[in-house]
């Protein structure tokens, strides 16, 4: 579904990704793990079109998207749950959700999608007329996920969805991700919570200093000595 081949990405003079290649198949949860500054967020930003690779190609379904603008990529069916939630603070919950369905493709299903995400996150329905900035961190994360779902995307990328949330909410968020995957949504998950990410994902890539250093199915990575030592602290 998503094929990334040999991309190099740089911020101005500073190169941050080196020869990164990976792929995501339909129906999978793929985890992308690594320490801070390894290049995880940069990878997601490049896929969503906020950054463009200086080399290499990104293919989604049958489209080359490495030179496309973000709003075109959303239209193709890739949605992002950005790091730090990034809900629109001075818009209501409902308005945030409506913007999630901004594209032509998604807007025709607006009412159905709303019903669906309200079912997934009943708390958002209760607070639909509240400004998003007044929600708690956990609720904002739910809103950010719901907003991405509104776009009717086939692939949803989540950047650190558990960051800064209390443990019970983290558990809830990961449950939701698994539940969404059962509804045939493909998920590319970036996480610093490596143990959790490997638990719920099918496959994973480990990235270090802008290079992919390890990959495989998540179960075997969980048992991998190197991974255990470097990321799981055991």
């Amino acid at each position: 579904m998503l094929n990334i081949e040999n991309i190099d990405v740089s911020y101005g003079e500073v190169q941050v990704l080196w020869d990164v290649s990976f792929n995501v198949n339909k129906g999978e949860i793929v985890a992308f793990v690594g320490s801070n500054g390894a290049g995880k967020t940069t990878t997601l930003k490049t896929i969503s079109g906020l950054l463009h690779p200086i080399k290499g190609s990104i293919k989604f379904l049958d489209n080359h998207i490495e030179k496309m603008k973000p709003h075109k990529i959303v239209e193709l069916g890739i949605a992002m749950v950005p790091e730090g939630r990034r809900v629109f603070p001075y818009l209501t919950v409902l308005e945030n959700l409506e913007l999630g369905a901004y594209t032509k493709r998604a807007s025709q299903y607006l009412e159905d999608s709303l019903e669906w995400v309200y079912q997934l996150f009943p708390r958002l329905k209760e607070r639909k007329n509240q400004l998003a900035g007044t929600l708690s961190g956990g609720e904002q994360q739910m809103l950010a996920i719901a907003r991405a779902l509104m776009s009717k995307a086939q692939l949803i990328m989540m950047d650190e969805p558990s960051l800064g949330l209390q443990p019970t909410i983290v558990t809830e968020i990961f449950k939701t991700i698994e539940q969404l995957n059962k509804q045939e949504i493909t998920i590319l998950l970036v996480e610093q919570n490596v143990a959790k990410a490997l638990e719920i994902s099918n496959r994973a890539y480990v990235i270090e200093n802008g290079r992919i250093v390890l990959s495989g199915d998540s179960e075997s990575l969980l048992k991998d000595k190197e991974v255990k030592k470097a990321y799981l602290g055991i």
Partner: protein
Amino acid sequence: MIETILAQLVNGLVIGAVYSLIAVGLTLIWSIADIPDFAQGGIYTFAAFAAYFTVTLLHFPYFFSLVVAVITGTLLSVTIEKVCYRPLRGSPFSQLLVAIALFFLLANLAIFLWTPKAKILPSPLEGIILNFAGFSVSLQRITVIAAAFALFIAVNFLLKRTKLGKAIRATAQDPETATLMGINRDFIYTVIFALGGCLTAIAAALIAPLYAVYPEMGTLPLLKALVVVVFGGMGSFIGALAGGFLLGLIETFGAIYVSVAYQHGFAFIILILTLIFKPGGLFGRS
């Protein structure tokens, strides 16, 4: 006594309507595109001249000249964004310099084309005088105030109730995330510059019959509208609206009860006081 106060109230609201109309567009452009769009001063002048020539050369009715002014202002504003600001996106300082250059360029182009001489734009509404128990006011003045309010209701509806309006507000709050929703930033920029040019043009064509049409006519309204943006709070629609009318009233009443000499100075006193005591502005968010 009471008549003087009423007359000044009307004058204050008329000039305030002009400030508010320009400021609403400016505040949207400034908060979203990060450009203090000085070029709106030139757009104001060109829109007024477009109205003037529509009436005097082409002999169309005044109402039709309003439409011509709006088309002129909107196209000019959108073109300036596309040709002058867009290639410089990402370097706000260069954009600021270009904006100031356009401000002078358009005023001087108007002098070059049409000489500095002031011209009169005749409006049939100016000849209709309404009497309220001894107090009289021209229909033109009432029209300026009424049209401004009608436009504010329309803009408010656009921003609050429509999908496009939500996209504009989202872009103002978080431009990067807005593009991730599928919002085309270039399109939003075109819309806000069109809206700004349209409001500036209407203000110019509505007030032109009350004063005069001349190349420098955009200077003071533009500078004062910029003050209103800061005074009302950057990016705040209601701030631009209230701030514009407030400044109009302060100016007219200040001219009478303080001194005419300071009429154009009040705006800048307000600017200084705002920056010292309430840097976020009246309705600012931070």
